[in-house]
Structure formats: structure tokens, C-alpha cells
């Protein structure tokens, strides 16, 4: 419990820092930390495959991509201007309201842990993925393909004759 608590706390802290850092690169770095802590929490839940996927994909690929873009679009004035939007006040209220709602739901009814069933194992995941959920799986592949193409097309430089 204690280690879990620590990990969760770390995750929350780094998330907080992500959104409050001035330098966006710092935000990215803190995001990576958050992602990693999430991965560890997955480990505690015996979802090893997912923890790995999280680290490889999220923290590895996606964050790298973000860092690349950050570096491509770096500007000095970013550091000079005000950090927060004009609508911050309202946003805080709304996010707070959301948190309250979620908290309320959370503490009202706690879901039980069904110990009489077996814990889902990796093999279960693989099996489910390729039998019951094969259709979404394939769709996801197509989606990836589409995203790939879209990315290339959108980010392409305009050709000058």
C-alpha cells in the first residue's frame, strides 16, 4: 500500500507540474514522469503488458514526437508572455466542479474486488484481443494507417514549382 501511495502521489504531483510549468519542455518532461508513474501503477494491478505498452508507446513514441515538435516550434517569446489564458478563473471553477463530482461518485460507492474470479492474465488479453475484439483491432490498424497518411499529408511542406 505504501509504495502504491507513493507512486500515485508522484503521478499526481508530476501531473500538476506538467500543467503549471512555464517552459513547455519542462511540461513535457514532467508528463513523461507522470506516464511512467502510471505505468508502474499498472504493474501493481498486474497488467504487465499494458505497463509495457504504456512505457514503449506513450512515454517512448508519443512523448518523443511531442518533444520533436516542441523543439521545432521553439520561440523565445513563449517564455516572456503570460502563461495562463484569460478564461483561467472559469476553467478552474469548472475543473473543480468536475473533481467534486468525480470525488462524490468515488466516495459514495466503492466497487468491490471480485476475488472469486481469476485475475486477467496476458494470455487472456491476447486471446480476447484476437477473438472477441478482433474487429476493433483491425479497425484500429486502419485508423493507424489513416493517421499515418494524414500526418504525412498535413505536415508536408508546400511544394514550390
Amino acid at each position, binding site marked *: 500500500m505504501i509504495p502504491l501511495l507513493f507512486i500515485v502521489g508522484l503521478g499526481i504531483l508530476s501531473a500538476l507540474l506538467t500543467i503549471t510549468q512555464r517552459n513547455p519542455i519542462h511540461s513535457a518532461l514532467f508528463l513523461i514522469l507522470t506516464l511512467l508513474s502510471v505505468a508502474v501503477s499498472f504493474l501493481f494491478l498486474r497488467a504487465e503488458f499494458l505497463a509495457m505498452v504504456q512505457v514503449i508507446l506513450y512515454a517512448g513514441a508519443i512523448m518523443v514526437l511531442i518533444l520533436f515538435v516542441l523543439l521545432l516550434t521553439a520561440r523565445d517569446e513563449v517564455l516572456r508572455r503570460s502563461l495562463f489564458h484569460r*478564461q483561467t478563473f472559469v476553467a478552474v471553477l*469548472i475543473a473543480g466542479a468536475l473533481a467534486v463530482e468525480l470525488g462524490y461518485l468515488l466516495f459514495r460507492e466503492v466497487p468491490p474486488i471480485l476475488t472469486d474470479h481469476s485475475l486477467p492474465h496476458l494470455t487472456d488479453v491476447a486471446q480476447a484481443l484476437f477473438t472477441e475484439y478482433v474487429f476493433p483491432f483491425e479497425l484500429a490498424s486502419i485508423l493507424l494507417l489513416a493517421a499515418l497518411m494524414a500526418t504525412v499529408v498535413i505536415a508536408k511542406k508546400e511544394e514550390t514549382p
Partner: protein
Amino acid sequence: MVDSLLPVMWLIPLFPALGAFLNGFFGHLIRKKAHWVAIPAVLLSFLFSLAVFATLLKAHHPHQVTLYRWIASDGFLVSVGFLFDTLSATMLLVVTGVGLLVHIYSIGYMHEDAGYARYFSYLNLFIFFMLMLVLADNYLLMFLGWEGVGLCSYLLIGFWFHKKSASDAAKKAFIVNRIGDAGFILGILLIIFMVGTTSYAVVLDALPHHVQRHPMESGIVTAIAFLLFMGAVGKSAQIPLYVWLPDAMEGPTPVSALIHAATMVTAGIYMVCRSHPLYLSAPLAMQTIAVTGAATALFAGTIATVQNDIKKVLAYSTVSQLGFMFLALGVGAFVAGMFHLVTHAFFKGLLFLGAGSVIHASSNEQDMQKLGGLRKKLPVTFATMLLGGLAIAGVPPFAGFWSKDEILTQTLQKGHPFLFGIASLAAVLTAFYIFRLLYLTFFGETRLSTEAVHHLHESPPTMTFALLTLAFLSLVGGFLLGFPPENGAFHHFLSASIQMPHTEHHFTSFNLMLMAGSVAMAGTGWFLAHLFYRLRPELPARLAKKRYVLYWLLFNKYWVDELYDKTVLALSRSLSKLSFACDRYLIDGVVNGAGRLAVTLSGIKLFFDQRVIDGTANGLAAATQFLSGSFRKIQTGGVQNYILTMTGGAVFLVGVLVFLLK
């Protein structure tokens, strides 16, 4: 043999009806030969009438034929039926006989006229209606004939309708007649009300009995008598409805002879005779008839003395003679009245046809002041007219003497000395004006233009035949029918139809004195005429100048027409103007008012429409503009604003879900 013909006697009116139909619709095909249709028609009717007469001569009882049911409604029945009795037989002979002669005469007279066929068609039609009138066995059918002859009179007076004076005269005749007819209709209605039917047999029996049983209710019967007499006043041209007859001279002269001398105008006389039981029960009505007759006789006679138009003299003479007839009826001498009707048909018909002959010969000159000395050139016409004149003047043994004398005698004998006096004066005037006419037309130096003199010729045989026939009848007819006075063949014949309380007719010295008196009256008249127009021809002009007021009064017919025009006609004109104005303003008012109302309403609607519709449209537009102006500010272009809004909404919904809907 003739007895067996009785069942078909109802054909008598149908021959001329057929003739009228044929000539009316197909006349344009035969044109100049139209008389070949018309004459046989009348001839047949005449022959059949002779047969009827012969039958009734042997046995005086009446014969009735019902043809068919005309009106059959709840409790009220009128049939088309004919009554053949001695009274109707007399009229039959007069109508068809004189009618036949006039038809023959018309061949010559109307020879060159363009409307030859139309003329004969109308003439036949007239005969038809007159026969219906005479033969009818009930008042309603008689009224049919009554109206029909009025129609034919209109058609024939206005025969030359292109001439305004002719068409005006026709209208006048019809309208004045109508006034009388209004009374007649009311009389018939009262009869229906009182008795429930119009059949002679029933009515003439019921009404007198009614008066006998209920003397207090004699007023209604008298009223009926008066109303019927009103019709007679119009049809037979008595005061005050005589004014159409002189104007009716616009028609062709044969028409004047037939309709306005011999037949139509006598319809009133016939009607009163037919209704004599009714009149005997209404002594007040009879008195009125007598007074009216006598007054008219004198009145018209005075006017006749100074007229210059040959036909006008004869017209007023007719009015006067009709007055004599009514006088007879009024004093109760019904047979005498009928007798005078018959003789009058002879000599007045003759005089008119003779006048026609004169006019025809003198290139249509009707003014006697322009005639004269025609005796030598028109011997037949002169001779026959002379006979007619003697007859009308009442010179024995000519026809008029017997009938006129009888009337005068009866008047005096029945105790009306005043009326006798008036009638005697009228008789003197009669002789005067007729000899005046004869002298002015036939004697002395001719005043015609040399051109006209050149054309002077005696009339063709078709015309002279009629003249001669009538002259013969005027000569011997009176004597044959009416001698001895009040006891002659005619009286016996007619008494079958006219039941009178039998009084002994003694031929006394009193009667002889009266006869002498009548002759004296005729002689006086003749002498005065002889004096004025033969011996001292300058006298008339001098007298006229000296007593010019009187002369003017007479010459202008007492200005009766003018009086009527200023009073009755003026009233009727203003009434019609009033109705026209009413009509126009009311109708136009309504129509225009409706129009204006519609315009106003639509104006309101337009206004409202504009305001409301436009208001709505504009309002909508303005609202849209305003709203869109406000709402566009939401599109900030900033994505985060959108996210904020969305998130806010989602949070709100979730909140609702979570907190409110457990």
C-alpha cells in the same frame, strides 16, 4: 238539315282564327292573294251564323255547347263553352255579315298597301275574338274576347305604325280601354266572390235572387253592375273614356267601319244586354247608364257639328249613337238598344265605308273643307252615303228612324222626360252634322286641287258592292225588322233571350205624335244644315266669328284631351318619374354603397395587412439581426473557449445526473 249542323256550330270562331294564323305566319308567301285565305274564313263563319240564325228562328230556345274545361281549381270551374241564343245569334250575324262586307271592301281599299297580308290577318283575328266575346257562355271567356278585340283594335289602329300619330293613337286606345277593363275585372272578381262561378246561367239567376232575398245587400250587386259598366264605358267610348275613338281614325277606314262603328264598340251594349237580369236588380246602375248615355249623345253630337275631318265627324257621331244605345239600356229598353245597334251597324258602317271611298278617290284628302262637288264624279258613293245619312238622321222609312224613335219613345214612356229632351236635342244635332257632311263633301264647287280632281274616280266593285249592300239594308232593314214599332220581327226574336215583364204594346196616338216629333227633329236638323251649307254658305264663318268662344270650345273638343293630359297623365308621369328616381337612387345607392363598402373594407384590410404583415416581416428580420448580432460573439475563433464551454456543459449534465437523478 241545319239542325244537324248545330253540333259543329262551335267552329264559327275557328275559321277566322285559322285565317289569321295562316295569313299571319305565311302571309308573306301569298302577299297579294292574302284575301283568298281571309275572305273564305269569314264567309264560312257567316254562312254558319246564318244556319244558327235559321235554327233559332224556328225554335227560339237556346243551345249551349261546352268545348272543354279551361280552369279547374278547387271549387272554381270555368269552361270554354258557347251559348247560341237569339241575342248571340243577332250579334253573330252583325259581326260576320258586316265583317264579310268590310273584308270584301278591303280588297279594293288596301290594294296597294305593303302590309296586305298582315292587315287581313289582323282583321281575321279581330273577327275571331269578337265571336268569342259574343258566343261565350261565361264572363271570363267573354273577357278573353273583350281583351282580344282590344288587342286587335290596337294592332289595326296602329297599322301604319311608322306614323307617330297612328302609333300614339293605338296606345291611347289600348290604355284608355284598360282603365275600363280594370273595372270590368273587378266586377268579374266580385262575381266570383259572390257566386263562385262566372257562368251566365248561374250568375244571372243567382244575383237577382240574392237581391230579392237580401234587399240590404243590394249594394254589392249594384257595385258589380257599376264595375262591369265601367268596362263598357271604356270599350264603347262613353264619357269619360271616349277620347280614344276619335284618335282611332288613324287606322284604315275599313277598320273604322268594322271595329269602331259596327262591332267592337258595341261590345259594351251587348254585355249589358246579356247581363240585363243583373242590371234590372240594380236600378241605380241603370240610372247611371241612362244619364251617361244621354249626356254622351249630346256632348259628342255638339263636337261633331264643327269638325272638319270627315272621319272625325263620323267618329263623334258613333260616340253619340252609342250614347243613344246606352240611354235605351238605362231606361230598360234593352231590345230597343239592340235594335239601334243593328241599324247603326248598317248605316254607320255604310257611312264609314263611303267616307273611305271618298278619301280613296280624292287622293287621301280627309279635310272636308278641301272637298266638295264630288256628287257627279262619285255617283255610287254619293247615293249610298245619302241613304246612310237619311238613315242616321232618322228619316222614315229608313232604318235609323225606327230604332231611334223607339228609343225616344221608351225613354219618355218609362218616365224620363229630361233625358228625352237631351236625346231629342242630340237627334237634331245628328241630322245637322250628317247633312253638313254630305253638303260639304258632295255639293257645291269642288275645293280639291286640279291634280286631285284629275284622279277622281268611282271606287272599284269590291268597294261599291259593300256600299250597295249596306245601303240596301239601311233602306229596308229598319222597316223589316222593326215594324210595327216594338212589335216587329226583331222584337219577337230577341224577346226569347231578353225576358222582360211583358207590357202590352199598344200603338196609340201618343206614339204617332212622337214619331211625328222624331221626323220633325230630323227635318230641323236637315234644314239647319241646308241653310248653313247650301243657301247661305257664308253663315258658318260669320257665326263662328261672332260666337267664337263657343266655336273654339266645340272645335277643340272642349279641350278634354288637354285636361286629361294635365291631370291624369301628369299624375301618372310624375308617379313614374318618382318610381324611376326611387329605383335609381335605391338601386344605385345599394350598389354603389356596396361598392364603397367593399373599397373601404379592403382599404382597412390593406392598412392592417401592411402594418401587420410588414410589421411581422420587418420585426422578424430585426429580431434575427439582433439575435445574430448577439450570438455571433460566441464565435471567438479560440478553440479553448469552445472546449471550456463544452466541458462546462458536460460537467453540468453530469452534475444533474449525479446529484439530481439518483
